[in-house]
């Protein structure tokens, strides 16, 4: 009988959602078979069995979230084997209200007893503590998750434990936290609102990551916005010409592909925009990796075209389609969504005139592309009808100043109006 634990599938992963159990209870499993699909903060990934046997129990149902390391199921030699209940440390939310089992506590192995309380894991991050504070909390029988840390970054230190022991503010650690702490589902109750007829919508991890990252971006990155409308006649003609040339290959270059490539070309000419402001330091990126925002059911993802400056238009076109397809199927690998140095977001297909995009940190800028529209404009003193596209560049003012951003957008506009330069 072996336990299957929630694996760490990406560097930033803290918990995972059981997306689909590929193997059902009782199924025969061979090492290398896909057991379960797990949704992390970045993607849905397949998780394979490490050994042969039978899946005899699923501890976690599809759609439930569990922290890394938690037992999600059991594999045994016989399909009839029954896992011991005591081996499963934490109950899923629905069973959280169960009575604490006295005998289970006594039988628990010492390593398990030393583990931090599971309640802390499911309701928030493990508290930052010094090893000494952790040991003293155990000696005093204090629940360390209820103690406020006074050290660097809120680290709980000996002084905090001693103060808590003195005033008794931290509840005695009951060792049965699942019973004393409301389950996560119960905490979501405020969403229930009869006046508005509201209820909580179960969301994916991707949604939570979008919420967190974009909040962080808008709250910490001082955005400024530069707008410029380009004449797209030449671009349109250029695209027609290219696609004619490519007709036999089946590749069709979109306006967005042209814009993505032009952004990379302009970034090579204006490397000061291909930067990041990280921890009070300006970081210069020597590779140009343009991310392309893709809307999928779960939300927004930004697959990255690495070395965009070095790729041909047909490579960009093929790769973008491939990544967008993977994004829609939730199959993007974390490395296909990281390492971007600039992003392009295009809402032209929705008929949007122009918009202000939110920067995707730690990138320094994002280009928002509106729809191509015929407009009456003055050309050589005459009113003429020309196809035009509105561009708006959102810029991180910490890394890039106004004039620098403006020079970049000017370059980009000129490249797009003289599109042969895209490929030069």
């Amino acid at each position, binding site marked *: 009988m072996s336990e299957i634990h929630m694996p760490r599938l990406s560097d930033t992963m803290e918990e995972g959602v059981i997306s689909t159990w590929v193997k059902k209870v009782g199924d025969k499993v061979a090492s290398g078979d896909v057991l379960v699909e797990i949704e992390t903060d970045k993607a849905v990934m397949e998780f394979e069995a490490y050994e042969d046997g039978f899946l005899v129990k699923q501890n976690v149902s599809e759609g439930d979230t569990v922290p890394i390391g938690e037992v999600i199921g059991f594999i045994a030699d016989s399909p009839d084997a029954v896992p011991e209940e005591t081996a499963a440390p934490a109950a899923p939310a629905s069973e959280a209200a169960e009575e604490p089992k006295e005998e289970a506590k006594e039988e628990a192995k010492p390593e398990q007893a030393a583990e931090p309380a599971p309640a802390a894991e499911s309701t928030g991050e493990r508290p930052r503590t010094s090893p000494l504070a952790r*040991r003293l909390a155990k000696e005093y029988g204090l629940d360390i998750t209820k103690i406020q840390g006074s050290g660097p970054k809120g680290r709980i230190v000996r002084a905090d434990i001693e103060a808590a022991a003195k005033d008794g503010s931290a509840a005695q650690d009951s060792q049965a936290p699942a019973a004393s702490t409301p389950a996560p589902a119960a905490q979501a109750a405020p969403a229930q609102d009869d006046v508005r007829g509201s209820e909580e919508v179960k969301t994916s991890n991707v949604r939570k990551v979008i919420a967190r990252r974009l909040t962080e971006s808008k709250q910490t990155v001082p955005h400024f916005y530069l707008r410029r409308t380009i004449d797209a006649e030449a671009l349109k003609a250029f695209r027609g010409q290219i696609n004619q040339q490519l007709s036999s290959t089946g590749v069709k270059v979109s306006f967005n592909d042209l814009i993505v490539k032009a952004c990379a070309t302009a970034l090579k000419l204006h490397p000061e925009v291909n930067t990041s402001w990280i921890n009070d330091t300006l970081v210069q990126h020597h590779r140009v990796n343009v991310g392309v925002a893709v809307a999928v059911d779960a939300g927004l993802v930004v697959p990255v075209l690495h070395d965009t400056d070095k790729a041909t238009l047909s490579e960009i076109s093929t790769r973008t389609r491939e990544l967008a397809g993977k994004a829609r199927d939730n199959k993007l690998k974390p490395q296909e969504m990281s390492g971007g140095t600039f992003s392009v977001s295009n809402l032209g297909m929705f008929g949007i005139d122009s918009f202000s995009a939110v920067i995707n940190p730690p990138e320094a800028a994002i280009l928002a592309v509106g729809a191509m529209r015929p407009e009456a404009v003055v050309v050589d003193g005459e009113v003429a009808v020309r196809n035009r596209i509105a561009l708006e560049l959102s810029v991180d003012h910490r890394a890039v100043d106004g004039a620098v951003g403006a020079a970049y957008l000017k370059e980009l506009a000129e490249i797009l109006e003289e599109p042969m330069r895209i490929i030069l």
Partner: protein
Amino acid sequence: MSVITYRQALRDTLRAEMVRDENVLVIGEEIGVFEGSYKITEGLLKEFGPRRVKDTPIAEEGFVGAAVGAAMLGLRPVVELMTINFSLIAIDQIINHAAKIYGMFGGQTSVPLVIRTPGGGGQQLGATHSQNIELFYSFIPGLKVMAPSTPAEASSMLRAAIRDDDPVLFLENLGLYNSKGEVPEDYAEPKNDNIATIGRAAVTREGSDITLIGYSRMATVATQVAEKLAEEDISVEVVDLRSLRPLDRQTFVDSVKKTGAAVICEDDWLTYGIGAEIAASIQEGAFDYLDAPVRRVAMAEVPMPYAKPLETAALPSVESISTAIKETLSAVGKRVG
């Protein structure tokens, strides 16, 4: 008790051992007629003659090799290397011969050799003569590395080194030769049996707030730091490592278990330094007693500058060590001035 210099403690102990055992001889550059660059061998040539006090050419590999051979055949040579920097020329003799012979040849012969040599910066001797490379030897099984910081230790540890049957690198320090301290009245008596136990660190000052660990000159600087911070009501426990190999982990681990925090000060470079080994040992031995990360204060990562202000800036000081201690203590909520 009487008060003498570190230099005199070494000189008188060396003489006493030569009187006690006729197999003890000294060998090195400028140690006979000139009586030693740092006068540790003063008067020895006159008293014991050229068979037991050997002036050598400037050829470290040669005379260390000769001493290894003499030791293998039953003599107890005490080599003087003018500074530890010159040991680099003899490093193959030390590491591949002195340290290996006993084990490699099935214990047929031990190598009762002592290599006395001073390290230490702060003397404006430039980059090649100011290094603290005792780490190289502390890394090598088969060697013992001793680093006394006081006249009393210099005496009892040199006696232990000479009487020990294994090769010992005996680390002195240019900055300590003139330092003074109490020694027992009979420290220079040939019959003296005040012999240090090899491989023992010592708590040289008790304290309760933090453990400060050093060796050689830095152990004395650590004591100054503790005295200064005592005025600000900070109680620093000082551990003098005294022996770098074998390393007495128990003593400093026990101290950290008591205080919950540690700062290590060292004259060598930080990266891969002695302090890194101490810090690793602390987390292995006292992890659950640490209330703050272990801090290291070491020399700047540069070849030692010659210019005095730069040299001073490159070395750890009472001030830089005090700052590290205060930062560590303020992180654990202790009031610091």
